[in-house]
Structures are given as structure tokens and as C-alpha cells.
């Protein structure tokens, strides 16, 4: 029966895919970004949404990339029972040293080391005594390459954002996950921030009515100095030199998509994108190049616009406004606004607010809301998460939930379809920006399964038994 339904959905998906491909994409000669695999004409071989993998009592983890982000991810895991940090991989000996010291400090055995070559990560993935590979290497094609390699070798994957950078990578990631039946969770930590979880729970319980629109953003000033990356982070400058679009979409988009049940009842259909000119970085690089010849190759170039604004429309007729700005001197913001037929919320500028009718709620009413709608995981471990820290506690909430799901054989809150979809906004925005903000269709990585996929479980009805090593707090 289930098989039949899936078959039926596949047929529908195939039928509609043919229609949804915009001829513009293929006619566009100067921009071959989307030339291949834009809308995949393949069936979903297996639905990873809602997939319950076999339970793993003790999750054995390998960390690939233990720079500042990787180390932080690893530190979160040291607070959990039911986890073994088995191995670490990095080409930087100092990073490895730092992690080993951290493990000792947390009363844990030192990890096995993979280092010495640019391909050491392969060895780490091949180790049969590993269940989960946690990836935090610099942004670029290695995110997808390592994820795919790890899944091919039977490992579940937790990969840093964005998971993929091209549409082809996105499809490869999805197909590999389906074929190997291994989870590929993108570590979109902002989905686990306190206000985001609160509003997700409120959305689920109908507080906002029908959600009509959401605003999201990644507005994070790198400061005047950060405009020209240091040599150790030169990938960051290369990225902005080469690409113009919404280059970091997932932090803002993830929580909004969850509130709208995207991939699980709704889908992103098409988008438009517009970048302002670059008013800052080019000048800063030019000044730097005068002082240091190393930066000459970065001069002369045009740079990603200061501000990118993208608008996404969903199949059910909702819209999402998504911005990206890491250059302008601005106060940090992900906006996180949801507007519904009964109420709205707006996180940034802080403090976060919620409105009913035409009025923002006062402090007392906000306390009542928190009392009533605090999400189950936050109730359970919120206080401990704040103590562990990591972007205020959201990193720990995410890590605990990831491990708890693996240990209890529960579906991922954020599965491979979310990873592909939230990340693919980058290449799609790039195309739209390069083509005078023309609309572009967004691939349906679920290939029709979005119509029947179950929403993310926010009630913690299953699992929740992963123990925290409280004595370390």
C-alpha cells in the first residue's frame, strides 16, 4: 500500500517536473551555474524524511575539521552520555592538540588522530567503528564530498552549514542519503535557538493562525577589519570575490521553513534575488593591496553586494524574505519574523516581540506566552543548555537532540532534504542576481513526498532519554 502511494507520488512528481523547468535556465549562456541537474528527473528511491534508522546505544563519533567551529561542536558532545568521541581529523597540528587537551579536561580518553594529508578525512570515514561523522571544514566542495563519502561508508553525517554549494552537489547528497539510508543532518543550530523553538511550537499550536509570510536574514557585520580576510581565512575573501548572491542562507531560512512545514506539507516553489552594489569590500581590498602584494590578485575584482534580498514563494502561497549582509556596519540580526492570520512575531532587533491583533504584547503577556508555549526540549534541558553555552545554548540543544534521535532510532528534525533545500538558495540566488532578479524555480528534492511527509516532532513524545554529564557543568 505504502509502496503504491509512493509510486503514485513519483509519477505525479515526474509529470510536474517536466513542466516546472524554466527554459531560461538552459538558454542562459553566460552563466553555466545551473546547466546540469537543475530539476532531477529521477524517482525518490527511498524517503529519508521520517526515516527511523536502527537504534545506536552508544554513538561513536569522528570529527573532521576541528578548527574553532569543529572544536565547539566536539565540546558539546563531551557533555553527553551515550557518546564516544573516537577520532578527530585536521591538517592543523595545533587544532588537534587543543582538542586532545579539551578531552582530557572533560575526563575523556584522547581521540585517534587522522592528519598529515589533505585526504586524511577519507581514512576517518572508512573506520568501521564509527557511527557518525561530524563535519566542520571550511566552506566549499568538501562539505558535500566528505558527507557523501561518509554515507557511502555507512556513516550517518552531521555537516556544518551550508551543506552544499551547487545544485549538482545537492542532488548527489540527497541520492546518496536515500541509497545508503544514512542520515545527513545539516547542523542548522539556529533552528534550536530559544525564541525560534518557542515560535515553532506556537506555530504548531495555531497561535499565529495560518502563517502567510516570514522574514529571515543573516546580517552579521565582520567589522571594518573583517572586510579583508586574513590569509588563514582567505577562502572567505575568495568566496565574496567570486560569488554575488545570498551566500549564507540557512541560519535565517531554517527556522522559518520549519514554522511553515516546508518539505512537510509545503514546498519552496520559486525565488527572486537582488544584490545591492558593493560599496565597501572592494575599496578595503584595494587599500590592503597597496600595502601587501599578496592581496594584488584580489584587487581589481568586483565583490558580492553589501546587501542581498531574496524573496521565496511557497507552493501554498506563502512568501519568505531572506537577506544577507556581512559587510555593512550593522547590529547582528536574523530578523525571524512570522506573520499569520492571527498574530505575528519579530525577534530582531532584540528584544523579541509577539503581537496579537494590532498590538505588541507587554512583558507580563510575554511571560505568559513563554509559560504556555515553551517547547518540550527547552523545558527538559534548556537550563543545562544555557550553562553549557555555544551560541547561548542552542548548539547544545541541537547536539543533544541529534544524539538522542540516533540513540532512539528517531527521524532527524533536519533531514537531507532540508540540508539540500536550505543550502541551494545560494546558487539559485546567484543566478537570479546575475539575471536581473528574474524568478527561478526551486528544485523539489523530496520529489513530491512533501505532500505527505509528517511535520517535525516538537513535542518530544519519543526519546528524550539521553543523559547529560551534569557533574561537568
Amino acid at each position, binding site marked *: 500500500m505504502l509502496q503504491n502511494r509512493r509510486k503514485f507520488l513519483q509519477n505525479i512528481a515526474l509529470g510536474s517536473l517536466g513542466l516546472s523547468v524554466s527554459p531560461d535556465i538552459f538558454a542562459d549562456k553566460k552563466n553555466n551555474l545551473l546547466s546540469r541537474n537543475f530539476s532531477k528527473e529521477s524517482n525518490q528511491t527511498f524517503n529519508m524524511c521520517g526515516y527511523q534508522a536502527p537504534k545506536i546505544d552508544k554513538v561513536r563519533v569522528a570529527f573532521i575539521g576541528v578548527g574553532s567551529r569543529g572544536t565547539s561542536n566536539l565540546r558539546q558532545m563531551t557533555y553527553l552520555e551515550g557518546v564516544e568521541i573516537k577520532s578527530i581529523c585536521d591538517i592543523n597540528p595545533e587544532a588537534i592538540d587543543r582538542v586532545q587537551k579539551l578531552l582530557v579536561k572533560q575526563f575523556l580518553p584522547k581521540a585517534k588522530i587522522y592528519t598529515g594529508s589533505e585526504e586524511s578525512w577519507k581514512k576517518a570515514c572508512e573506520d568501521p567503528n564509527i557511527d557518525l561523522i561530524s563535519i566542520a571544514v571550511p566552506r566549499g566542495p568538501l562539505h558535500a564530498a566528505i558527507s557523501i563519502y561518509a554515507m557511502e561508508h555507512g556513516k550517518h553525517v552531521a555537516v556544518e552549514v551550508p551543506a552544499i554549494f551547487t545544485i549538482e552537489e545537492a542532488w548527489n547528497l540527497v541520492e546518496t542519503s536515500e541509497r545508503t539510508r544514512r542520515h545527513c543532518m545539516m547542523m542548522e543550530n539556529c533552528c534550536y535557538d530559544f525564541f525560534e523553538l518557542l515560535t515553532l511550537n506556537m506555530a504548531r499550536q495555531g497561535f499565529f493562525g495560518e502563517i502567510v509570510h516570514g522574514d529571515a536574514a543573516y546580517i552579521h557585520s565582520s567589522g571594518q577589519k573583517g572586510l579583508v580576510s586574513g590569509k588563514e581565512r582567505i577562502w572567505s575573501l575568495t568566496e565574496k570575490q567570486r560569488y554575488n548572491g545570498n551566500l549564507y542562507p540557512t541560519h535565517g531560512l531554517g527556522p522559518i521553513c520549519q514554522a511553515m512545514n516546508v518539505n512537510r506539507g509545503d514546498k519552496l516553489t520559486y525565488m527572486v534575488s537582488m544584490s545591492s552594489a558593493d*560599496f565597501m569590500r572592494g575599496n578595503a581590498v584595494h587599500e590592503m593591496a597597496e600595502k601587501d602584494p599578496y592581496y594584488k590578485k584580489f584587487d581589481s575584482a568586483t565583490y558580492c553586494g553589501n546587501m542581498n534580498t531574496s524573496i521565496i514563494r511557497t507552493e501554498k502561497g506563502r512568501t519568505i524574505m531572506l537577506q544577507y549582509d556581512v559587510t555593512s556596519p550593522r*547590529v547582528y540580526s536574523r530578523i525571524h519574523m512570522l506573520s499569520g492570520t492571527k498574530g505575528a512575531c519579530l525577534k530582531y532587533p532584540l528584544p523579541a516581540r509577539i503581537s496579537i491583533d494590532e498590538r505588541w504584547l507587554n512583558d507580563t503577556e510575554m511571560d505568559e506566552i513563554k509559560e504556555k508555549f515553551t517547547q518540550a526540549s527547552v523545558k527538559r534541558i534548556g537550563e543545562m543548555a544555557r550553562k553549557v553555552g555555544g551560541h547561548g545554548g542552542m548548539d547544545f540543544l541541537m547536539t543533544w537532540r541529534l544524539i538522542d534521535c540516533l540513540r532512539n532510532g528517531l527521524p532527524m528534525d533536519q533531514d537531507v532534504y532540508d540540508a539540500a533545500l536550505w543550502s541551494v538558495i545560494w546558487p539559485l540566488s546567484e543566478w537570479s542576481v546575475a539575471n536581473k532578479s528574474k524568478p527561478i524555480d526551486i528544485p523539489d528534492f523530496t520529489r513530491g513526498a512533501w505532500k505527505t511527509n509528517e511535520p517535525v516532532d516538537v513535542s518530544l513524545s519519543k526519546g528524550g532519554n539521553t543523559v547529560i554529564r551534569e557533574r561537568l557543568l
Partner: protein
Amino acid sequence: MNRRFYLKSAAIAGIGMAVNPSGVLGKAISTRNQSFKKDFVSIGFIGVGNRGRGLLNLILKEKGVRVPAICDVNPDAIIKAQQGLRDNGQKNADTYIKDEYSWKKLLERKDIDGVVIATTWDWLVPIALGAMLAQKYVGLEVPAALTLEDCWELVDTHEKTGTNMMFLENCCYDRECMAVLQMVREGLFGKPSHATCGYRHSSYGSPGWLDSNIDLTNKPTKKNHEFSLLKNADQYPTHGVGPVANWLDINCGNRFLYLTSTSTTANTIPDYVQNHPKGGPEHPNAKRNWKQGDIITTVVKTYRGETVMINYDNFLPRPYSRDYSLQGTNTVWSGLYLKRGIYVHDKSSSHQWETGEKYDKYMKEYDHPLWKNFLKQHKIYDMAESILYDESIL
């Protein structure tokens, strides 16, 4: 009196400098100068509903204004407007109330220098064109033109007749928006790169939603909710766009190049009607094809490379907002409705908005001269606009 005289001379001198001797503008100036010598101006009011009477009462605060003629099809509005005139020490005005074309008679009067047009949306442009052709100065309420053709008609007619038309976009005179303009001009922002604005004004559950007698045929005067049956667009952009256009030098060194606009579905009105005790699934408005989406998000690119995001959100229950913010290479400002805050590079603490008193200090320091020197007495910007409009005639 002296001040006004000074302004007049300054205005003339300023205009003189701007004249393009051989162009259309030259002709415009020659007609424009004719009425400069009057001691008072006579203004006719076309449309004296809520908004028209609001403007009337403000304009009457200015000495040197006479309002000898008013026009409206609604007798109630006329009675109230006459009361307003008497309250301000003026005589009853002559009235033009016969039909929807009575404004033409008003425009034939020789003693009228200018008109303020505050009618329903469909009538704004036809009357403005008529007024310009009758060589009257025009104060035209928002949203003015509803179609591209109307936009060009306004421009062409202005150039052809040389008659001044001022668009009464009151939000341009918002004190904080003007302070921000001052900041831009003095370089505090560095180069502007992005601005946001919008019009979020909930009409949720307005009586029109349950009006079962909507008739769009043979009806030149449409109500606002009736436009929602006709098109899906940002139907009220100017309150947001006005101040932004000033900050970004639009039409004065910069211009809007292209835009993209995305709409949500149009479910809110039919859902409301369907679920309302006085509505229900059989109510005609539950079955109508409402076109206007709940939220329209528009992004505009400018010639210099800035982007502008404009929201239109007229249906959903939300706190009122015009969503003003401006970002530059040195400063970012977030206005009243998002959060009063300013962040200045190298002055503000990292990632901290300056709010409260610190914010007020900026607003005071950059208070626009118009507000600072000229309008100390008045609290509301409608007043400012009304008086400015006057000045442009005198």
C-alpha cells in the same frame, strides 16, 4: 511677513538658477511667476471627506490663506467643512456638489490659485490633470496615479502647462525621516546601500469585507476594499517610498532602475468572510475572486546600486508599521516601528544599537532645519506639509 518675503525672493532666485532657458521648464517658470505678488492665496478644496477636512483645518491655521470654494458629492462632508471654515474665522465657501463632475466648475473660477485634491483614488489623477490645464497649482493626495499611463499623463501635463503640482506625501515630512535625510546629506551614513520601508496597516475585518453589495460595474468611485477585487499589487507604496527616495537622491542624481515583486495568496478576506457569523460559505464575498495578496514584497534596484525593500501588508492583523530603515557604509538606522535605534561605526559599541536618550541625541543633533527653525510651534507633520505647500504658492 518679512520672513515670507525673504522666502519668496529666495525661491525666485533659486528657480532662476535652475531654469533651462530653451527647455520646457523655461515656459513653466514664466507662468509660475504670475501669482507671486498676491498678499494671500485662494485655495479650493476638492474632496472634503476625512482627509480633505484634515488638510483644510491645517491650511486654515496659516494666515494669508482663503478657501472660497469647496467641492464634494457628500452633503454631510460639505456641512462639516463649512463648520471648519467658520471655526477658523472664515466665511462659508461656495459649494460644488451637484455631481461627480462639479469640480470642473470649481476649476473655472478665476479667483482660485490652487486646489487641494483629496478625493477617492479613481478621481485623483483626472482632477489633477484638469487643474493643471486650468493653470491652478495642485496639491494632490496619495496614492495619485494608479496606472503607468496616469504617471506619464501627470508628468506630461505638468511639463506642458508649467503648473506646479505637489504630491502631498506627508510621510516625507516625518521628523525622524527628515533627520535621517539630514544625516545622509551630512555624510553620517557614508554611502547608503540599502533601505527598507513599507505600509503595514491592518484593515482586518473592515466593514467592507462583509459588504454584500459590491458592484464594480459603471461605478467611477471605488472603495478601497473594492480595489482588492481588481488587482494584486503594492497598492499603497508612497508613504514608504517617499522618504526613501529623498535619502537616496531619487530623480536628483539617482533613479529607480527595476524591481521584482512577490505576492502571497489572497486568502485572508475570503477566509474571514467564510468564518464570520454574518458571513458564511454562501456569502457572496466568500465566493468572489479576491485578487489582492495578503503581503506584497518588492525589491527595487537603483542606478547607483542601492536596493530598496518595500512591504505592503494591508490585511493581516499586525501592529502598524512603515518599516523604515536605512543602511550605509558607516551607519545603520532603524525607525520607530522596527525599533528606534542607530548604530554608527566607530562610535557605537560593537553590535549595540544606540537607543533611548542616546538615540534622541542623534535625532536632535541632526534635526532638519525645516523642523528646527521654522516649525518650532507645531507637533504634527501634516501641519508642516500644509504650510510648505502654501509657501510654494506664495
